[in-house]
């Protein structure tokens, strides 16, 4: 199938319209309110009051927490989501390759990048880099179809999956090239998809 997108050649880099970034920032982080927020009590399911009271602890999406915690007058303080707390960091430091990162956090790296803003010690950033570099060998083996255990793909986080998918596609193209004389021209991706769907509808 013909890929018309060259965009793929350049690795993921978040932007305002990036679906991945929007989905990643929907993940939740614990925070504690420093002031009363009148009228927005309904955000706290455990309470029936009209106002959200100072001192309340809630788990809110990162996009919201980020806004409320920054600026000159923060409304909340952020706590690290559990996957980035010391206990979990220790697990990753012990052996990051053994961890099912998908369960750890679907968007472990993306969320981590956002959270790292609020971690002055730099522990989050350090564990992100450590985890990524330690798990790279596994990722490369998967992409290169070496030591096939496809179930390992399920244990990748979303960023790793993306890298795996692009890397694996390229590796398969390369292997095809090495093994075949001519790679025939193919129909465009969307055309093929469209046709498949049509067939399903008919059946």
């Amino acid at each position, binding site marked *: 199938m*013909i890929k*018309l*997108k060259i965009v793929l050649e350049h690795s993921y880099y978040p932007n*305002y*319209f*990036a*679906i991945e970034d*929007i*989905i990643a920032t*929907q993940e939740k982080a614990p925070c504690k309110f420093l*002031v*009363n*927020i*009148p*009228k*927005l009590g309904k*955000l706290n399911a455990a309470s029936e009051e009209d*106002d959200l009271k100072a001192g309340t602890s809630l788990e809110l*999406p990162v*996009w*919201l927490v980020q*806004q*409320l915690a920054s600026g000159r007058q923060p*409304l909340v303080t952020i706590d690290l989501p559990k996957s980035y707390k010391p206990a979990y960091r220790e697990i990753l430091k012990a052996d990051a390759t053994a961890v099912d990162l998908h369960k750890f956090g679907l968007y472990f790296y993306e969320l981590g990048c956002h959270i790292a803003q609020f971690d002055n010690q730099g522990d989050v950033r350090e564990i992100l880099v450590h985890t990524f570099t330690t798990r790279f060998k596994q990722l490369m083996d998967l992409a290169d179809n070496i030591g096939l255990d496809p179930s390992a793909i399920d244990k990748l986080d979303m960023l790793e999956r993306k890298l795996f998918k692009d890397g694996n596609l390229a590796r398969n193209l390369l292997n095809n090239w090495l093994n*075949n*004389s*001519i*790679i*025939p*021209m*193919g*129909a*465009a*991706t*969307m*055309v*093929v*998809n*469209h*046709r498949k*769907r*049509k067939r399903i509808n008919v059946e």
Partner: protein
Amino acid sequence: MLGEKAYSLVKELEDRQCEILPYNTDLVTEIATEIVHLYDQNHQDVRLEDSRTPGTSTNLMPTVRMRHAAIQRNQRCLLAYHYNRLRLLRQMRWEFGSILPTELKENLSAAENGWFNKYSTILGKYMRSIGENGGLNLAVDLKPPKALFIEVRCLVDYGKLELNDGTNVLLKKNSQHFLPRSECEELIRRGILQHIAN
């Protein structure tokens, strides 16, 4: 919860780099309603704040700020949904050409249909501007050239194809032909011909 609908709208696009789903008018309208609602509430509270004597009664600014964050989030999701659909439309223009299959067209909003045609027009204009001799079609020559002629099989009853040298070829389902590569590349991409590599 704030911004939930907007989130599910964006979620629709996840892992859909190669297909366009029906435009979700209902959800888009609901999100617009949520935004207007938040906006109105903020408007009211800001007015109350303006008339409030400092130090008296409740400070509404934190509430306003929180709602504003939700407004921005809703807007981001809404625009991301539309933007990424335009990117898909762009890809469709390159893959299907300037005329879309009707079933796909039905999945677009009126504004999207308009955008598709607009994009087609400006792209065509650009291609015609290349060089001094009437332009260059960028929708062909997608792969490095190998041979001038290639073996193809026809996948549908397409009808007559007139070649640049004036000869006519009848493209019937399952018929095989030896054709100039440059003249059948587009038909291959559109799934009408299949390239048979030996």
